[in-house]
């Protein structure tokens, strides 16, 4: 599997993962930014709450899709999951993100209550993505 992924990326699998992870991290920031607008706690950007909700939804789906792609390559990859410490932390953050996502969808689609918790869930999600970024991309960039 790793050889296949290396092959289709021209032996630049990690570079592609770094790019995708950075995009996902940026989208996580976009999510929080537009969530503040759709919750009407911010008047910026100057668009309607409904428009902000649509942007939030689209960028969220894009982030989850790209994140899932990266996660699959991680699961198929040769590293970790428990050693070294950086990879252990990365595994924890990665797992946490998908657990938090599950909780968020449960709140939104199943429970249909507890909406007041969504800002906290969103913040935790962003911090999870930040942890993923810090334990991989930052290491990758600084090691070059």
């Amino acid at each position, binding site marked *: 599997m790793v050889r296949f992924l*290396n092959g289709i990326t021209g*032996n630049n699998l*990690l570079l592609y993962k770094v790019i995708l992870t*950075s995009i996902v991290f940026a989208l996580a920031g976009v999510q929080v*930014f537009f969530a*503040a607008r759709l919750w009407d706690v*911010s008047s*910026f950007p100057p668009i309607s709450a409904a428009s902000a909700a649509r942007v939030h939804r689209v960028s969220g789906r894009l982030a989850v899709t790209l994140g899932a792609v990266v996660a699959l390559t991680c699961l198929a990859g040769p590293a970790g999951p428990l050693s070294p410490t950086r990879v252990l932390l990365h595994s924890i953050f990665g797992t946490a993100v998908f657990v938090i996502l599950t909780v968020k969808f449960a709140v939104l689609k199943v429970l249909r209550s507890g909406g007041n918790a969504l800002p906290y869930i969103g913040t935790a999600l962003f911090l999870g993505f930040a942890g993923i970024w810090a334990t991989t991309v930052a290491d990758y960039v600084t090691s070059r």
Partner: protein
Amino acid sequence: MTTSRKLVLLAGSLVLGAALVLTGVPAGAAGGQTTIVNFDYEPNAQSVAVGTTITWTNSADRPHTVTDRGGTFDTNPVGPHQSASVTFTVPGTYHYFCRINPSRMNGVITVTGDSTGAAVNRVEAIDPALPGERLRFNPDTLTVKAGSTVLVANVGGKPHTLAADDGSFDSGVVAPGAEGGRFAGTNASVVLTKPGIYRFHCDVHPQAMTGVITVTGPTQPGPAPPSDAARQTSVSVVDFAFQPGQASVAPGGKVTWRNGGDAPHTATFDDVALDTGTVLPGSSASLPAPQKPGSYSYRCAIHPGRMRGVLVVLGQNVADPTQPVAARAQTAAAVTGRRGPGGALSGLVLGTAVVAAFLAGFGIAMFLRPRRRRGG
């Protein structure tokens, strides 16, 4: 088109643009044979004749090393699209690995040659630290000429020795690599001077690890410990420093200190009884280097606080720490004239992170703001 659609399109364009810019950055991929990939060597088992130079080219996107588990060579990290070479002058089997990915990247090279004509032959001490292996010497049967050296390389995870049953020779304990052999072990040498048939064993595992060495030819006095280092070297003494501060020489080699300063100096060793005595300005003094490989510190006894130096006595196949890295690294930039992705990637990735942190920080602050008002 609504404002939100414009924003979505704008965001999508930015994402796609960033991806195109990043993936369009020259990766420095050069043509040629791939020998290191994430996370393997291709091929990872090969047989070559003695004297062959093997070049490893890293086509992966992470640095890797090619390191002898027996401690005789180490390319140090070979960056993406760089290469490193090692010339194999001693017959034997070489288990090697990547120091950065020690469990995943392993290979073996068999260097074939006439052991009876070789000045040095390699015997590996192997144990179950290598997957699928057992306690054994490789080879366990060897014919060498009198006066030649047997280099015992511990590529396993336990201490081993190579000692003659009749006490004719003994390598002493050859330490294994750190973490039970996960990393590179060490090596030792024994010189076989008298012809005969010698049964040998490992003192630590005398039942499982045995072998026979046949020594042929006339009795030899036994050479000095083999070394690739210079047989003599010189150090300039100035007011108030040794130049170079670190010099290397073969065991027993000649070291000369030349005083080019205006003050008298000495070269007085800290741990061995070697001392040039006072070397007057314009004169020089020589000493024989210690026979035992290692690093020896010395000082000027007249100016001990200001003048210190190190003499490195190099054993066989030991990388010279006073010289640049032995691996002949050749960057892709030198080959293709193109830059790698490091700098541009760093900037864009870090920029992305700053933007993400700013957006999220703004959003989180907005969520917190009404709460503070309510609290106030």
